């Protein structure tokens, strides 16, 4: 479905140059070349390890947009990521129609506007940092198939933009392994951004019927899978409330940004929850402060994330401590349940300092040091140097 759609749009794009005289086709692109390393030989962070690597965050992208006239246009963005061995993939492919001067509808493969920078996560040139704060920008799926309607209007001196999305996602998320097969149906969301000159505020609510499979769990003992199966044999309802099967997942995001004279302040707070499931309630925030000095911007970010899991129903008191099963032995439903719930809990604290230097009208050089502490483990430091450009 996705590929068919993408192919249709590319066909539409290539056809326009020959069929419609008036069609106006533009090619834009962006690229990032980033080198980084960590100080820890055992744990990788942002894809880096203790040897310098260029692959994890380098990327090249081309966007072809064709204006077919009368408010209709087709756009495809093809991206090649180092983390994906530079295989080219369609990141976006959609048709746009301007219903009026203030309202536009997009249909196809689109970005989910979870975060303030969701729409241009990969366009490093568009933001100050080396990368958006990862404790907050933690949802690994960023696109969906569906519709987006954006309305821009003014409220007094404020610019107001309301976006409504509807669609589905079929791919993977990063929960117990790096690639847990996931399906999100009936994704619905509303995203409201208000801007007044130097001040921007933003709020989003989105929800979806969420199913996530744990079949790719890399844990050799498969404690999660076996644990749920074990509890489920005796207490099917408990297993059902642990599994992520058509459960309503919700996302709330609030943010603001100040760009006043040369001072830049930004903050976002987000919360993710999937009801009746083992998925922990995730709350994250970051605060970033930056200062522009001519072509330089220096910045510092502090981030905090907390995944807590009391369980949507606390079965601890209902489940027996131990149970003897004939022909199997003794099992410990209460302990297993508590261990499963606790396995999803995590605390993350991150501190970053960095600088951006606009050394060319279309390119920026960035230097960034980020220190990340997960639970009680030692902090892992990542140093990265990169160039972002747009063309």
């Amino acid at each position: 479905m996705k590929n068919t759609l993408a192919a249709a749009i590319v066909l539409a794009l290539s056809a326009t140059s020959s069929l419609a005289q008036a069609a106006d086709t533009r090619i834009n692109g962006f690229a990032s070349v980033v080198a980084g390393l960590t100080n820890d030989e055992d744990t990788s962070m942002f894809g880096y390890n203790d040897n310098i690597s260029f692959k994890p965050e380098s990327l090249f992208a081309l966007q072809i947009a064709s204006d077919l006239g009368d408010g209709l246009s087709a756009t495809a963005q093809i991206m090649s990521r180092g983390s994906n061995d530079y295989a080219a993939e369609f990141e976006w492919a959609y048709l746009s129609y301007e219903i009026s001067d203030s309202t536009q509808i997009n249909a196809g493969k689109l970005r989910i506007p979870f975060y303030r920078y969701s729409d241009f996560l990969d366009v490093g040139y568009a933001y100050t940092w080396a990368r958006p704060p990862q404790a907050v920008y933690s949802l690994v799926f960023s696109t969906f198939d569906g519709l987006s309607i954006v309305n821009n209007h003014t409220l007094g001196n404020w610019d107001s933009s309301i976006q409504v999305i509807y669609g589905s996602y079929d791919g993977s998320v990063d929960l117990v392994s790096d690639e847990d097969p996931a399906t999100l149906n009936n994704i619905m969301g509303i995203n409201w951004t208000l801007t007044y000159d130097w001040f921007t505020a933003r709020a989003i609510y989105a929800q979806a019927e969420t199913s996530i499979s744990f079949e790719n769990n890399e844990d050799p003992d498969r404690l999660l899978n076996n644990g749920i199966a074990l509890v489920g044999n005796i207490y099917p309802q408990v297993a059902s409330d642990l599994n992520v099967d058509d459960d309503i997942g919700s996302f709330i995001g609030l943010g603001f940004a100040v760009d006043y004279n040369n001072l830049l302040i930004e903050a976002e707070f987000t919360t993710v929850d999937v009801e009746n499931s083992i998925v922990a309630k995730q709350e994250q925030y970051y605060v970033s402060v930056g200062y522009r000095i001519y072509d330089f911007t220096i910045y510092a970010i502090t981030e905090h994330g907390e995944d807590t899991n009391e369980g949507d129903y606390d079965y601890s008191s209902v489940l027996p401590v131990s149970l003897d099963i004939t022909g199997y032995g003794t099992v410990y439903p209460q302990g297993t349940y508590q261990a499963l719930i606790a396995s999803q809990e995590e605390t993350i604290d991150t501190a970053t300092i960095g600088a951006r230097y606009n050394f060319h009208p279309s390119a920026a050089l960035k230097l960034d040091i980020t220190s990340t502490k997960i639970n009680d483990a030692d902090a892992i430091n990542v140093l990265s140097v990169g160039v972002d450009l747009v063309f």
Partner: protein
Amino acid sequence: MKFLKTKLCITILGLTSVFAQAEIAVVVHPSNASALDSSAISRIFLGKLKSFDGGGQAVPINQESSMAATDEFNSKVLNKSGSQLKSYWSKLVFTGKGTPPKVVANDAEVISLISANPNLIGYIDATAVTGTVKVIAKF
């Protein structure tokens, strides 16, 4: 009469240019009766406002980023540096939410396009203004 006004205008511009070296003029087609303040002009050039107050479609045209008029316009009217503006547009371009204005090479091209199209709005060095376009603001 109109011609006379323009001539007068040029004379005055000629005088003021002694004091303000790079004054820029925002120009439209002579038939365009819109009154635009600097905030409305800025909104048009940032893609936030798409029509004139008279109702006609407003299409901004930029000059090459190497032109002095562009720098002046960006900093005086849009209040942004070249790279801030580039980053502003890259956010819109790569998300399908907007397209930066068309870019032309110099004042003469702006004048020739605008004198032929009532929907266009552009900026030029104030000393380059001719009778074929109408100045609606100077910065």
